[in-house]
């Protein structure tokens, strides 16, 4: 079974992707007072004011990077969670069920998040 060798490699790659993009996200959201950057919070005020959210949503950069971050973070987090669950030694059948549940949850949340990113882009362009 090749699975863990492959999954772990992508877990590490995803972790690096998350590091870069979540680092950027955290800087925008939570280090904005300490490291003010006009290009990231163009409208001033709080990062989560609608004006800033819309301004980011209007660009191509943010929706695209949000989707990349979403995919990488879901894979990284859910594979880590799978590891924790499997290390508790559930019976074989339960392992398969858990594996599928986590994969479905990941795909479902990815779908929701991607829809949201695209729809928000449209909303921001129209406003």
């Amino acid at each position, binding site marked *: 079974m090749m699975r863990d060798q492959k999954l772990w490699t992508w877990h590490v790659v995803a972790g690096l992707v998350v590091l870069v993009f979540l680092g950027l996200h955290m800087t925008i959201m*939570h280090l904005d007072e300490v490291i003010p950057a006009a290009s990231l919070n163009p409208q001033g005020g709080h990062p989560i004011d609608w004006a800033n959210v819309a301004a980011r949503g209007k660009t191509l950069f943010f929706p695209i990077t949000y989707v990349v971050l*979403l995919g990488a973070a879901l894979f990284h987090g859910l594979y880590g969670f799978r590891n924790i669950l499997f290390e508790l030694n559930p019976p074989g059948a339960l392992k398969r069920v858990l594996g599928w549940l986590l994969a479905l949850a990941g795909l479902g949340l990815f779908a929701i*998040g991607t829809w949201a990113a695209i729809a928000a882009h449209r909303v921001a362009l129209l406003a």
Partner: protein
Amino acid sequence: MLKTRGFPNRLGIQGWAFGGRWGPERYLYTLHRITGLGLLLYFLLHILLTSSRALGMEAWEQAMGAVTAPIFTFGEYLVFVAFAFHALNGIRLVLVELGVGVGKPIEPVYPYRTSLNVQRPLAICAGIVALVLIVLGTLDFFILD
């Protein structure tokens, strides 16, 4: 299946947290797990909440209005702290688990210097950077806002 006989004696989940007398890296392992689970839990709720921006300004402000209580702000602060630790420890783990910074195999001469000794400076650096981030985050959350 592996056959074994006798009275069961696995430490179980206690072995993740209390296995005996340890070195710092094992505490880092436990903390990395805890922060990872915390971040994951927050993340799943975060996706659902922030997706509301796709439905326009009113939906967004309603969603944000639901999480203005101080307990949520503090929770977000904890998420930031967890991120700082998990990210920096994660960088250390990526390097170490790909064989960087664990040192070359050597002939063991007592007292043994293991790969843990070799990677210790890396762990300390990661800890310092994480602390700096936490200080910056604390400033941003509670003092400059």
